[in-house]
């Protein structure tokens, strides 16, 4: 009986009971309307990992172990670890120093520098790699990869650390000063300790990105796991070796993600309330320190932004004098928008049931579904693509190298972001509104349609937009799974770097940087509006309901 209760007296059925349901489970059971599609989404999310394991064992465990113990495998693994470690440490140094300079000192134009320092987030790493190899063709593979990845990744450390420094309670530092510690000792013993959880969380994101990255080592020709997986997949029909290497890579990323999850928990505990009204006293820098700080900021900005901009400008101008192929650019842009739109649509559709369940029902089963849908967070794009290629070749020939398989890969990779957006926006809608809707005669399914989704709509849409823009610049999965004959902006750029046609690739690089800048802007905007919406009374109510249920 989903019909709304009419105004006026209602006649119930003759037994006097308006069809009750049995009180079986004490906890509210999640409705099947959500559980069934959520299970489908979770199954799709874990499919590539599952098939990768199956495929690695294709020739039996002995062959698998044989590949693992080969010298070359060891060398590749060590090289991947060495690259990841170097990039992570350097990103920490750059990220923390820039965060401190832009939030806690009297450096001139601090707020301007803060924006500039975060901008490299908008340079896709493979575009940066292309820019550097085009400018310096003799760049050392290892040093070049470390340089490019550090310049692309340090904002992952900078942003959380700057946020922490910005809103940390000044009372702790004041207490330390009043207890007789000097400015520098206070900085070392109190301030740095406060930012440690944020820095650790950021560093692990850097590590995850570096370990999974395919574009930079591939373009700069550094032998790490990702590049070798791609090459051996291309050069042989035997999929076992790339599958096993992929499994090793996944093992490493899973360890990083596990560490990240742990550090995030601790960072949340260490966080100080957002409502600090008082601001910290910035540290007054001597003239020489000001000069040193400004030079450091300027040097990083020149390397991370100046080099790409100048190099792209140079190659674009050289290319256009030779004649810009606008037709190819246009069709690549069109294809990119098409697959990105499809990817965003499918990913969001799969994410809605999982996100709503995760926000509203906290049973064991729901937690399992949510965890499964996050699998893509730990899976490198190349590995997901590889696994789906194998699957497609063997079981789904008709859709192999067709759009559907590519869209599935996007869904697996970006489901975590979409589920997170849905979950957060549904959690912001107070559950009391759903209860009121129930008491006014709406069934659970209609409450979802008439109340929950309209309220969560803007957040879900923003999540979809973010997925759309991220898909547009995705490289490895697009490269391996795109329909025959289709070229996107990313694959065009890739093709150009492979043959050294730097001028032809330049307009694609410039367009990709512009596209990648959009989510940075969008995220910044969303964060601001989220704080505006945060109503203390509503939050308190949410807490109370959470405790009661």
């Amino acid at each position: 009986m989903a019909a709304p209760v009419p105004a006026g007296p209602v006649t119930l059925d003759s037994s006097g009971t308006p069809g009750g349901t049995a009180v079986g489970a004490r906890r509210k059971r999640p409705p099947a309307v959500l559980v069934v599609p959520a299970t489908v989404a979770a199954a799709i999310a874990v499919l590539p990992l599952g098939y990768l394991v199956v495929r690695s064992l294709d020739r039996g465990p002995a062959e698998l172990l044989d590949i693992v113990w080969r010298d070359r495998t060891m060398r590749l693994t060590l090289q991947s670890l060495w690259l990841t470690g170097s990039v992570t440490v350097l990103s920490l140094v750059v990220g923390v120093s820039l965060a401190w300079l832009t939030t806690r000192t009297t450096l001139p134009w601090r707020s301007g520098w803060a924006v500039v320092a975060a901008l490299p987030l908008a340079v896709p790493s493979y575009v940066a790699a292309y820019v550097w190899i085009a400018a310096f063709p003799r760049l050392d593979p290892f040093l070049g990869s470390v340089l490019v990845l550090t310049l692309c990744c340090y904002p992952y450390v900078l942003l959380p650390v700057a946020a922490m420094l910005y809103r940390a309670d000044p009372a702790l530092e004041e207490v330390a000063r009043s207890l007789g510690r000097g400015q520098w000792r206070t900085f070392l013993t109190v301030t740095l300790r406060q930012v440690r959880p944020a820095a650790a969380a950021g560093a692990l994101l850097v590590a995850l990105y570096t370990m999974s990255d395919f574009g930079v080592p591939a373009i700069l020709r550094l032998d790490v796991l990702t590049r070798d997986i791609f090459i051996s997949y291309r050069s042989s029909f035997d999929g076992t070796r790339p599958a096993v290497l992929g499994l090793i890579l996944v093992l490493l990323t899973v360890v990083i993600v596990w560490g990240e999850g742990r550090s995030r928990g601790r960072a949340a505990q260490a966080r100080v309330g957002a409502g600090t009204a008082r601001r910290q006293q910035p540290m007054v820098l001597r003239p020489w320190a000001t000069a040193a700080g400004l030079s450091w900021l300027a040097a990083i900005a020149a390397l991370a932004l100046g080099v790409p901009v100048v190099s792209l400008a140079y190659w674009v101008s050289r290319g256009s004098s030779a004649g810009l192929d606008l037709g190819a650019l246009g069709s690549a842009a069109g294809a990119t928008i098409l697959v990105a739109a499809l990817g965003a649509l499918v990913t969001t559709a799969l994410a809605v049931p999982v996100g709503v369940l995760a926000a509203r029902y906290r049973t064991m089963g729901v937690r399992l579904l949510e965890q499964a849908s996050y699998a893509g967070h730990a899976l490198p794009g190349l590995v997901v693509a590889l696994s789906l290629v194998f699957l497609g070749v063997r079981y789904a020939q008709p859709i192999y190298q067709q759009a559907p398989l590519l869209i599935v890969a996007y869904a697996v990779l970006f489901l975590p972001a979409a589920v997170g957006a849905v979950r957060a926006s549904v959690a912001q809608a107070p559950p009391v509104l759903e209860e009121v809707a129930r008491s006014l005669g709406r069934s659970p399914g209609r409450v979802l349609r008439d109340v929950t989704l309209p309220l969560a709509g803007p957040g879900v849409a923003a999540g979809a937009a973010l997925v759309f823009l991220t898909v547009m610049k995705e490289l490895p999965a697009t490269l391996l799974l795109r329909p025959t004959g289709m070229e996107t902006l990313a694959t065009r750029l890739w093709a150009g770097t492979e043959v050294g046609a730097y001028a032809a690739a330049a307009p694609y690089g410039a367009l990709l940087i512009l596209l990648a800048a959009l989510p940075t802007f969008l995220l910044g905007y969303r964060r601001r509006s989220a704080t505006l919406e945060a109503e203390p009374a509503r939050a308190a109510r949410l807490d109370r309901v959470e405790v009661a249920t």
Partner: protein
Amino acid sequence: MSELVVEGLVKSFGGPRVLDGLDLTVPEGALAAVLGSSGCGKTTLLRVVAGFEPADAGTIVLSGTKVASPGRHVPPERRRVGVVPQEGALFPHLTVAGNVGFGLGRGRKNAVRVDELLELVGLAGFGGRMPYELSGGQQQRVALARALAPGPALVLLDEPFSALDTGLRAAVREDVRTALRATGATAVLVTHDQEEALSMADLVAVMDRGRIAQVAAPGELYASPVDLGVATFVGDAVILDVVADGLLAASALGTLELREQMHGSGRVVVRPEQITLTDAGSGIPATVTATVFYGHDALVRVDVAGSDGPVPVSIRRLGAPTDVSIGESVGVRVVGPVSFYPAV
């Protein structure tokens, strides 16, 4: 007949029982206030009656229909129970008219009904506004109109005035009471504010540790609380040791008149406004120890001589206590009957 009958209701959230065999009957058309301190389980009672939480045991009968009993849990959308939550909880994506009409279908008749209800709560012409354009008091009225729109058998109000400031609260209370009367709806109001309960309700149920300690009309509850706990919870009370003999009892405040025949030692509850100040020399001699001025009235604290030393007594008077000074000797007298509780 839209009577609410709750019997033996039990609810726990895995820990101790929040509702512990609760019984409550609210006659048709009455406004009952469930009064209790925070954490006594009153919001849980409301959520179980609304159907948001299943009961562990016990029955809930609404308009002669069992909506909760062992093995049966009628979902909230089939109970015909309207809810007015704290802070109103209007749907932020719908207009005022959209909110009020949420429980109705579409159609012309329903538009008329929405206008009727807005008029009833004093917000005629506000239908096109969005919730954020309304004041807190207006939002509460819309929430009430929304709950009343489908013609529910019962309306539940969960501390609906606690988010309003004091001045507004009294006005909104009166409007809500008027609107409930006009529709003849049976209603249960949950509150921790005794003044709110006593001034609004036809029936006050005092709740303590998951049970109802007493249900009575406000005047009766105030005059004859069932035990000393209820007495001190509902209003200020002076508690005196007495020895009863029939309709009279001997106390530090002299001989008191009892409501019922009693014998033996026990305690009585005297309300501060039952005690008057007289000149020294008449009444029971007392010494003023403090005065507290509240604006509309004031408390004068005095000590009277008891068998074990001075007994503190509070006296309520209208206006400012300018005619008494601390340390002054006065006389006191008790007017009217008092309630007696035998010693256990």
